[in-house]
């Protein structure tokens, strides 16, 4: 049920993001979703790609500080209150969301929300218990 996300440490310097995408492109790795969190000096680039393990390996070899994190992807219906419905369930059981980001897919009208929590298994259980569809990793990678 988990999705493997690649996180990369980037200095706020010209050309660093381009270098990451270049390495991925050279290795035929396709980016599904990305988000950047940054401060004035550095940023953390978070990526969902079609081949997470390969991406981790090639970025590491290219000299980046990189890690993998398990995140959860859920489908959110494209209507007001869609996201709120999901967050409400997690809030009720006291699961704190560290960060989240969204992307849309070509195949469905639904949006995908990717989020990171400390208690991944617990969150999955809660969401499933409330009939919220969790999109498994394999499916996300192939979108």
């Amino acid at each position, binding site marked *: 049920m988990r999705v493997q*996300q690649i*996180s990369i*440490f980037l*200095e706020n310097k010209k050309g*660093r993001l381009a270098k990451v995408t270049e390495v991925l492109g050279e290795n035929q790795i396709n980016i599904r979703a990305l988000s950047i*969190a940054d*401060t004035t000096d550095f940023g953390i680039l978070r990526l969902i790609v079609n081949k997470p393990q390969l991406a981790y390996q090639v970025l590491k070899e290219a000299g980046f*500080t990189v890690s993998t*994190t398990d995140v959860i992807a859920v489908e959110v219906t494209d209507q007001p209150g869609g996201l709120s419905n999901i967050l409400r369930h997690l809030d009720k059981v006291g699961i704190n969301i560290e*960060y989240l980001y969204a992307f849309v897919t070509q195949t469905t009208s639904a949006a995908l929300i990717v989020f990171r929590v400390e208690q991944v298994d617990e969150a999955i259980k809660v969401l499933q218990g409330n009939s919220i569809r969790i999109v498994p990793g394999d499916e996300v990678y192939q979108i």
Partner: protein
Amino acid sequence: MLKRSVGAAGCPAVTGERYRIMSCTGKVALAIRVVPRKILSVPWWMEIFLFTVTSFSRTCFELGPSGQLGWYRGIVSPSLHRDGDFLFKVSVHTIMGVEYMTSYWDAHHETMSRDQLAEIQTKRLKTLVERVYTSVPFYRQAFQEKGITPGDIKSLEDLKSLPFTTKKDLRDTYPFGLFAVPRSEIVRMHASSGTTGKPIVVGYTKKDLDTWSDLVARCFSMAGGTKEDVVQNAYGYGLFTGGLGIHYGAERLGATIVPISGGNTARQIMLMQDFQTSILTCTPSYALYLADEIHAAGVDLGTLHLKVGIFGAEPWSNNMRRQLEEKLGIRAHDIYGLSEVLGPGVAMECPCQNGLHVFEDHFIPEIIDPVTEQPLPYGEKGELVFTTLTKEGFPVIRYRTKDISTLYPEVCECGRTHLRMERITGRTDDMLIIRGVNVFPSQIESVLLEFGETEPHYLLVVDRKASLDDLEIQVELSANMFSDKIAGLEVLERRLRERILSVLGISAKIKLVEPKSLPRSEGKAKRVIDRREL
């Protein structure tokens, strides 16, 4: 009690009293360090062949303490003890303990009484003063300006009345002004890189080279080197004294020298494996770089034969030593020297790792206050000053090294009577004065290393903004300290900042940078950029 998990392949080292090995299939390389209490004790290393396993599960063994001291490396394979206990049989290929059996290259001079030493020094000092007075116009003039004639130097105490020699004097007399023999007697010259102006040139007579080789052999012997060793010399060969100085010393020892010089890391690692290198000689920053590359290349430490590292030519810290020892499975020794005085082989750390023995039968060390130029008593920190006693080609009188150290007179546990100098903690000209506080890059290095999770690659950038000094410490972020949450990295920055503040008493901005983004050198490390225009 500290427990640390160790992977089966190329485990670095474990510290503490109990060791956990994460895999019990096949053979497991093990490196254990236990801090030595008594250095020159009995050959206790025999005992470590067996470890009692105190508990056993599918995935790990927990080993009882061996109770032994020193560094051990070897291949461990589990076998069943007749009582049902599991034992580890260790087929040891390097027992670091053996190296503690430090051997004297020149027992007579290395262990002579302080009185005997003073007698030799006095005799040699008188001869030296007489000689430079007659053969080097520079010294004659300097002595005359102070109203001194060679006859005034009657005891070691009188050394204090002699004038200092500085790097500027060496430049002003470029190239041969301070040579004390005719040029034809000089058989080799070395020179500094001369990046800050004219280079410093030093000359050696045949006898000087002989003395030098002997002193470097003394260094090797002190670190446990013998003719059985393979020495990989990754100091640069050429005008720099490091390469050739170490080279001929290793030859004098009778060891097998591999004159690979600096750089070409991939080849360094290959030859290290193929030639079974047992002693590595290079700068500590290059050693660390090599260690990282060895780990990056996935080389199993168990396949290397390294046991000793002799590192010098730049200041390094005890924390850096610990890192090098753990990463390479060696015992790291500090060697000190400078071209103006000899080159490597002026002082060397014995296995007690408690300061470097200055070879006092050839050099007289002093510590002075760099500002008042007054000699300081033993135990006080200041600038190191050397007088050479036996050099023919290029003798120096009270040469100011700009290196910061302390001298300790207590006789060492290893039995050597020569004074011990503290490892160099900085340079009078590396010393940064930031907001009125004296800061040495080495202090910051120790703070970074305390974190353990920080790779010791850093750069200090000093600037002056609105008439206030501003210190920024750029630190390379390693994978094990990376958090994919901004908050995690901010906490790391804050902890580093707080620690720097408490150690140095000044605040600094911490900037995390990407791995391998700071300038790497295969020679001396660049640690400071000072942008202040004063």
